[in-house]
């Protein structure tokens, strides 16, 4: 095993071009577990810790450009207004110690369906900026996940920043695990209201081979909100709309049975989370305070 320690982004790209099999390591929260447990012996480890720009973020007009290695703790503490869904998701990541090290780049690079940030990124809308010595490109988040633990990166590319749309409305995120903290998602759900475009977006985690959006649920809700004039009136969401939304979200899931939970439960839980989050976000949108984001939730 060789340990590559690029001091700059350019050096990192050069190293990745020269050694395409090199495994990038930043927070180490996935890679080191695999090494410690003898699941993986990469030929090269490519350390990204010395690259300062990966730990920076920039709040722009419409998007937050989030460095791939910005630790979850920083997202929780600094970006809860701009990226409320991602901040909530960050808060559910493992433990404080892990949140101090891990960042969204690791989640994306690993592309595990159980990665906590995926549903929030899908719901908010995001593009992943990847780069190689050949140049850089922006991959829409919807096209980023290509299979179980596979993503759209080419072998010589590294994830640089994630361009996440700044929240223009309430966002929520929940994850189900069989413990009250420090748990890998059995399944997760994220919802973002986008009042500017009068649309909603969703994200489902750990309930399909890749993170996915519940598109039928989104379409249904977009139509129902539009037809009912809900955006203008700000009236209460009817229980039947909430239920239908939950059912459609549940239907979007395509989970498996595994040691963490049954497929049936995952489908069920996705539906419950979707329904609840619709109420929470909508109440926040209406400004009643009933949908408040509870203390500790972000």
């Amino acid at each position, binding site marked *: 095993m060789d340990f590559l320690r690029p001091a700059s982004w350019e050096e990192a790209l050069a190293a990745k071009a020269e050694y395409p099999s090199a495994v990038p390591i930043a927070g180490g929260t996935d890679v080191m577990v695999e090494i410690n447990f003898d699941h993986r012996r990469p030929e090269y480890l490519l350390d990204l810790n010395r690259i300062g720009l990966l730990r920076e973020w920039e709040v722009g007009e419409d998007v937050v450009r989030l460095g791939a290695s910005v630790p979850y703790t920083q997202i929780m503490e600094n970006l809860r207004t701009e990226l409320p869904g991602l901040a909530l998701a960050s808060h*559910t990541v493992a433990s404080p110690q892990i949140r101090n090290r891990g960042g969204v780049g690791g989640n994306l690079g690993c592309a595990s369906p159980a990665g906590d940030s995926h549903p929030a990124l899908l719901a908010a809308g995001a593009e992943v900026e990847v780069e190689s010595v050949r140049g850089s490109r922006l991959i829409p988040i919807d096209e980023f996940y290509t299979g179980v633990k596979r993503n759209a990166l080419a072998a010589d590319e590294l994830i640089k920043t994630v361009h996440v749309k700044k929240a223009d409305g309430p966002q929520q995120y929940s994850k189900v695990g*069989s*413990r009250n903290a420090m748990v890998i998602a059995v399944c997760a759900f994220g919802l973002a209201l986008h009042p500017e475009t009068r649309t909603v977006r969703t994200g489902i985690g750990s309930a399909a081979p890749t993170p996915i959006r519940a598109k039928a649920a989104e379409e249904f809700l977009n139509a129902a909100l539009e037809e009912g004039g809900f955006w203008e009136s700000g009236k209460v969401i009817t229980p039947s709309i909430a239920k239908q939304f939950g059912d459609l979200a549940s239907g979007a899931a395509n989970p498996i049975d595994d040691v963490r939970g049954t497929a049936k*439960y995952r489908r069920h839980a996705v539906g419950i*989370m979707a329904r609840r989050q619709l109420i929470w976000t909508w109440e926040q949108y209406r400004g009643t305070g009933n949908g*408040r984001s509870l203390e500790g*939730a972000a």
Partner: protein
Amino acid sequence: MAQNTRTVPAGTPTNVTQKHNKGGIGESILRPDGTLKVTGEFAYSSDMWHEDMLWGQTLRSTVAHAEIVSIDISEALAMPGVYSVLTYDDLPAEMKNYGLEIQDTPVLAHGRVRHHGEPVALVAADHPETARRAAAKIKIDYRELPLVTDEASALAPDAPLIHEGRDDHHIGHVPHPNIVHRQPIIRGNVEEARKRADVIVEGEYTFGMQDQAFLGPESGLAVPSEDGGVELYVATQWLHSDLQQIAPVLGLPPEKVRMTLSGVGGAFGGREDISMQIHACLLALATNKPVKIVYNRFESFFGHVHRHPAKLYYEHGATKDGKLTHMKCKIVLDGGAYASASPAVVGNASSLSVGPYVLEDVDIEAIALYTNNPPCGAMRGFGAVQACFAYEAQMDKLAAKLGMDPVEFRQLNAMEMGTVMPTGQVVDAPAPVAELLRRVKARPLPPERQWESAGENADVRALPGGLSNTTHGEGVVRGVGYAVGIKNVGFSEGFDDYSTARVRLEVINGEPVAMVHTAMAEVGQGGITVHTQIARTELGVTQVTIHPADTQVGSAGSTSASRQTYMTGGAVKNTCEAVREALLEIGRRKNGSYHPAWATAELLLEGGKVVTDGGEVLADIADILENEAIDLELEFRHAATEPFDLVTGQGNGHVQYTFAAHRAVVEVDTELGLVKVVELATAQDVGKALNMLSVVGQIQGGTTQGLGVAIMEEIIVDPKTAKVRNPSFTDYLIPTILDTPTIPVDVLELADPKAPYGLRGMGEAPTLSSTPAVIAAIRQATGLEINKTPIRPEALTGTL
């Protein structure tokens, strides 16, 4: 803050002549190893280091049941940095097996593996990664065999025998060679008693496989010595039992295997069996170099036995005024591939299967199976834990059927001193079962739906799902549940259970100093703290040193079965008393002629002096001893017990009983099936708290392990392959601090006159009733019948 209640002892403790010594028994003195543990300097077994040391690695079977067709170690041996590769063929002695009671466990697999993760080969290399890579290069050709995974497949007519040619002392009375041990208990006449029952409830219960999940993984260091023997530094629960199993397979006399206890990172039963001890010694002897073995968490799940999973079938009857009429039960424990502590687990499960209730007509049967599942053995409260889950579920069912309050129903049937157990044994010490229940019930309930009353300050961390933000109160329902349990203390069924303590009293720098030397494994429970206290109380000294535990002193028995404060505490007390007598004898010899009190008064040791019971100072201990040292090593035994009759189960099998009750308050998100335990209150009788701080710590820790197995902890074994599916802390979940509620503790001290200071072994009881109390609370919240623990969200949402 926990609220502790002290009750004036009812009985008279024996032999207490000493009193009021500072830092003595009854005070919450702090741990003598505390400073080392908070500075990181306490040397655990995995911290050992030796110049020139090698790393040992175990290669384990990847299948559960197979014939080993061939093993090829050549590639591994050829690797640079590899010093030794060992298989069964390299074992040096005629004895190739070990085991706590039955020597059925091969040191390395011989021709066949019987469970997933069984050790097959060993490697020693100069770096752990080299050892791992070498182990990966060992080629093993397995031919898989049919699996035995449950009662049906174990007892089927054509079932493969897990152990052929058994010659252990249980084979004569078990109905099938795939049964390790069977213990029936018959008393009264169930058929007749059933006729008196107005209501009858039946239940089938399943208890999952729990892991001890101690935080310090199995580890140790073996150092070859010049005389051809070996020194072993290891974390264990019972040095002498290890020694008895290690020496024969090394082909060494016991005196050439010198064992020293290193720091132990928790145990809970999981270190009662051998893990890496023999392997490290074999490699050290083969390479003539020190060898260190440290399991990682993955291997740890295969490196020790687990709590027996169980199926329990119960029938209870009661009259309409709420009196139990009879109980019939069958308890099937899965012992896995090797016997470990299974026979004793069967004994406990059967003899404690009635719970702390008066029941004169019973028909009980408990068996442990041999299967291809992971071996199961000792874990905190064994046998009693599984039974408690089932009989407490039955009590709730009966109370519901009778329309009675579940606590009142239990109290109506609660045993007390004088009750006759199903084994015929009379309960001869206080058994405050009804009182413990009264206490937990009387405690005010925590406010409901606290997140609502908190208004804007509502905290998602207080809700089911916690930080995961799954509910803001939707679907959340409160439930309250009660349970009480009974556990035996010490080794039972005629086992010669003893401990040994060596105490040396001498003068150092003008001050009398007591040195206490035992082989007791301090695993975190605080035994060394109470030994310090006992020596102070009995010898009137301030300075006490605790000698490291090793095999240079007699056996202390195991740190298990809630027995060490009773047994090794008793041994320390006993030896201190003899040392005191010896000191007074010297005093009488030297000073007796100067003061009549030496001959006439009852003399005590206080504050470094010999005093009369009236408080008159006769001499300084230091002046009596001068340059002499008193150094005694004595054994201590509890009252002898008897084996249970193999047909009727009758016999005075237990030494002492211990009781605890719990009240669980839970909030369940009924839509998502997520549980938040809000409070887990407990009351327990400890006879006499030698150190209340430690007692409360044990109770809270035991309670939390019971909570874990109620809602999250289970080793999941695939029934199709008998392979463990979740050997990691990612998927075997134990409670975090956010899963663990406030645990108010109410301690009673009703002395057991037979026991040292009247104390009652107390480490295990809290683990028993915690689990059924939590499950009862979830039942109340959800209205669901729950017959399996741990309860998974799927079971609460109908999505299994």
